[in-house]
């Protein structure tokens, strides 16, 4: 293997220092777990002059509830999020982050990093999309909160400016009458990219689904929500007929490609299957 390219390393201790560094350094990239970035550096897919390590910024390491939101700090690892008591309120997120990569990867990689890498197959994305997640983007003197979907500009392209950092991911505390599920199909159980993935969120009012949100991974240029599918199930009793109609709509709504992991036809068919299973699991999880 090739050695890593040379870069200067910076380890700020405060967020203020980190945004200052991102602003003043040329060709700087932030790093947290390095589980995506280090392989990219080795392949020479990117060659930053400076790496700004966020791991020592203590104020970015948390999973907490604040002002009606569940908030994930930028350096919170997959393992940390999976183990968080708070995250039991959002089971689809736990489904995803507790199976990403391997134990070693989950101990090191962050949810923020997984999202910023902007892979269409990022497993943390569909569950966070169905929770209407937002990302907090900070640069010197500026803070913006944008819908998660806007972070994804294309396959492996995020919408961040060179001096911007994602410092938090947050979503509204879900109501007690809600639950969710995330499922994926992959060549193996562990340590592999999803061929197709689906997340479903449901809010139940007796036997009726008062609100539904669904999202998919690996079926478009970015992880996507499918509003046309959501409309078909919101306000309905979720019998097999309704769920089948939704699955058919899901198959029509996606635009997958054929690549080494699977064909477009397979992905299209399976996103319907996964959606059915995800909806049924989510409904079954509502108390």
């Amino acid at each position, binding site marked *: 293997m090739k050695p890593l390219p040379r870069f200067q390393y910076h380890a700020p201790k405060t967020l203020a220092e980190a945004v200052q560094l991102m602003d003043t350094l040329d060709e700087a990239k932030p790093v947290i*777990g390095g589980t995506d970035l280090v*392989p990219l550096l080795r392949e020479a897919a990117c060659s930053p002059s400076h790496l700004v*390590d966020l791991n020592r910024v203590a104020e970015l390491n948390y999973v907490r509830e604040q002002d009606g939101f569940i908030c994930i700090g930028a350096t919170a690892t997959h393992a940390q999020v999976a183990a968080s008591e708070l995250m039991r309120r959002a089971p689809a997120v736990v489904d995803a982050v507790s199976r990403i990569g391997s134990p070693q990867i989950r101990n*090191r990689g962050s949810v923020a990093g997984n999202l910023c890498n902007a892979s269409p197959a990022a497993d943390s994305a569909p569950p966070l999309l169905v929770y209407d997640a937002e990302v907090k983007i900070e640069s010197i003197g500026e803070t913006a909160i944008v819908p998660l979907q806007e972070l994804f500009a294309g396959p492996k392209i995020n919408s961040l400016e060179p001096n911007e950092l994602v410092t938090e991911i947050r979503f509204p505390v879900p109501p007690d009458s809600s639950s969710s599920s995330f499922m994926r199909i992959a060549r193996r159980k*562990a*340590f592999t990219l999803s061929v197709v993935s689906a997340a479903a969120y449901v809010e139940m009012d007796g036997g009726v689904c008062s609100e539904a949100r669904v999202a998919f991974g690996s079926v478009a240029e970015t992880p996507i929500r499918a509003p046309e599918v959501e409309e078909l199930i919101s306000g309905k009793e979720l019998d097999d007929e309704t769920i089948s109609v939704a699955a058919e709509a899901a198959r029509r709504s996606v635009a997958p490609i054929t690549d080494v992991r699977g064909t477009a036809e397979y992905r299209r068919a399976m996103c319907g299957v996964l959606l059915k299973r995800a909806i049924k699991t989510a409904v079954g999880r509502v108390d």
Partner: protein
Amino acid sequence: MEVSFELNGEPVTVTVEPHVSLLDMLRDEMGVKSVKKGCEQGECGACTLLLDGVPVTSCLVLAPQVEGRHVTTIEGLEKNPLMIDLREAFIENGAVQCGFCTPGMLMSAYVLLRDNPHPSMEEAKRGIEGNICRCTGYTKIIEAILDAAERIAPE
């Protein structure tokens, strides 16, 4: 730059370039060869060690990132009772073929049993899901882990 950390309980300071991985620093600068260099992409688990007590692939950790932290390689667990039982179970169950995956496999197995003394077969499989054995000896490795669990904490 200088990086100071604790390696297997001993404070150490190493002069190293920031673009060197923890794996390369240990192997090339410090002579710690138990951490194996496999894929260098975090996929094979051969370089697994403990960073502040949790398993990570050291090929994905940059040397300066361990400043002030605790690194444990298999050498640091040589006299650990759990690791001794695991090691013996690996030998007696024929869980070692070429041996390249073994140090990383033992580190993951150690953490599995440390955190969950009575794993199910499924839990044992998940515990080592980040470690690849290309001799395809998983069956014997899982048998060894379950055997070690029985030795340590018989039900």
